């Protein structure tokens, strides 16, 4: 386990609202670390709609999810936030007044004065195929991610999906596997054309199999897969013997461990005080899509407002002895210095 990381505020979620929180906190001299389960910043903007236009960011008539993420990263640059990507927060504990401990699934420990949950719709996790009885195989012979390629050496593998993850792992694991079968529902792939060509060449050379269909049943014992049934378009079912299966159907949002931290919840959302965006636990805030209050709108612009008010309250926990004087970035030399423009 690494040394404890000490900071003022830990922000859970590096979507647009988490990113903007860095800005609002930064103006008040509050340092922040951000943790996100995705391996990139931007949250839903990056994962769900990087190329889709957003039309309701005040003052910006048109911007894509990717564009907004880039712009926010530029805006918060002066505050040098630290990012911990590809990590899931597993535990948040209140140790005392303005004192929290946050732990991640990568065994990182943070100690901070406040925590801001900006986790949107929860954490992005792999979609699980609805194959009856799949649960006992998960993490034993059905994997949604490849941690160590060596684990698949000499095995008979079934990879399912038609995107880049499925194709990349097909190309990477094919040389190691005893036999690899790629299963996809149609004979067209949305992955990079180069990967598609390489995969087709392997199939043509007889070095791997491609089956068009959907996996409908699994066979095995005590979590160890022995075969998968694949139903083709003509409804014929083919049985493929295998030792492991890797389904790649993209990601979906799940609430995740948030519900286990003792925060009062309301149907998977966190009720907050609309003056401070504090939860029932003092010093623990919830901003953006994950919170709820009368009139709540799940809009990025609402999350920005919430981040600003949260920061005002967080200031009192971080600097309890100081009085906060409200200032404008247009006129305050002190704020402009922080932004590196004065």
């Amino acid at each position, binding site marked *: 386990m690494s040394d404890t990381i000490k900071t003022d505020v830990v922000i859970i979620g590096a979507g647009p609202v988490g990113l903007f929180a860095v800005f609002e906190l930064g103006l008040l001299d509050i340092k922040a670390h951000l943790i996100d389960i995705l391996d990139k910043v931007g949250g839903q903007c990056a994962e769900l709609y990087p190329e*889709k236009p957003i039309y309701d960011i005040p003052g910006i008539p048109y911007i894509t999810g990717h564009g907004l993420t880039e712009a926010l990263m530029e805006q918060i640059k002066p505050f040098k936030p630290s990012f911990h990507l590809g990590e899931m927060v597993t535990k948040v504990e209140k140790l005392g007044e303005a004192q929290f401990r946050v732990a991640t699934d990568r065994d990182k420990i943070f100690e901070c004065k406040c925590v801001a949950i900006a986790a949107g719709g929860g954490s992005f996790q792999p*979609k699980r195929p609805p194959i009856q009885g799949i649960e006992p195989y998960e993490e034993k012979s059905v994997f949604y991610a490849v941690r160590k390629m060596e684990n698949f050496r000499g095995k008979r593998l079934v990879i399912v999906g038609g995107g880049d993850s499925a194709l990349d792992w097909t190309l990477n694991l094919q040389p190691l596997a005893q036999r690899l079968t790629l299963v996809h529902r149609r004979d*067209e792939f949305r992955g990079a054309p180069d990967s598609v060509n390489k995969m087709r060449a392997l199939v043509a050379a007889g070095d791997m199999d491609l089956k068009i269909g*959907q996996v409908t049943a699994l066979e095995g014992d005590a979590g160890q897969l022995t075969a998968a049934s694949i139903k083709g378009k003509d409804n014929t079912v083919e049985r493929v013997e295998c030792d492991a299966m890797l389904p790649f159907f*993209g990601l*979906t949002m799940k609430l995740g461990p948030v519900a286990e931290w003792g925060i009062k919840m309301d149907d998977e959302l966190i009720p907050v005080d609309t003056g401070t965006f504090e939860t029932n636990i003092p010093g623990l805030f919830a901003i953006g899509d994950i919170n709820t209050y009368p009139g709540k709108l799940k809009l990025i612009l609402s999350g920005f407002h919430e981040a600003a008010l949260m920061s005002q309250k967080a200031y009192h926990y971080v600097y309890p002895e100081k009085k906060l004087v409200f200032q404008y970035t247009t006129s305050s030399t002190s704020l402009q210095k922080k932004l590196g423009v004065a």
Partner: protein
Amino acid sequence: MSEVLDRATPRAGKDMMPKITYIEHDGTVHTVEAELGSTVMETALKNDIGGIVAECGGGCTCATCLVHVDQKWFPVVGPPSEEENQMLDTAFEVTETSRLSCQIKVTEALDGLVVRTPSYQGR
């Protein structure tokens, strides 16, 4: 002839509200009125129809609003675009008449449409 006209006249034009029938996986049937120009997904959410998640809010980026269009209606609704087809790759139990309901715009021609929701939308 007059019967057809009688039925069509009050419902024609921009105030027409096509009826859509959703059949949930457990057999629950909902027949609701849809606004022209809205989508089959939006209409489902508006009417609290189970089985439609619509995680991304209609962006054709999450495949959690899958429906199976009734065989009879599929030629009217039409096939998915390539963009939608790519998202269907990340859905489950996809059939020849599966569509993402956020990509089906409600038009007068869809009055009477029947769709079925799947048992699982990936979450």
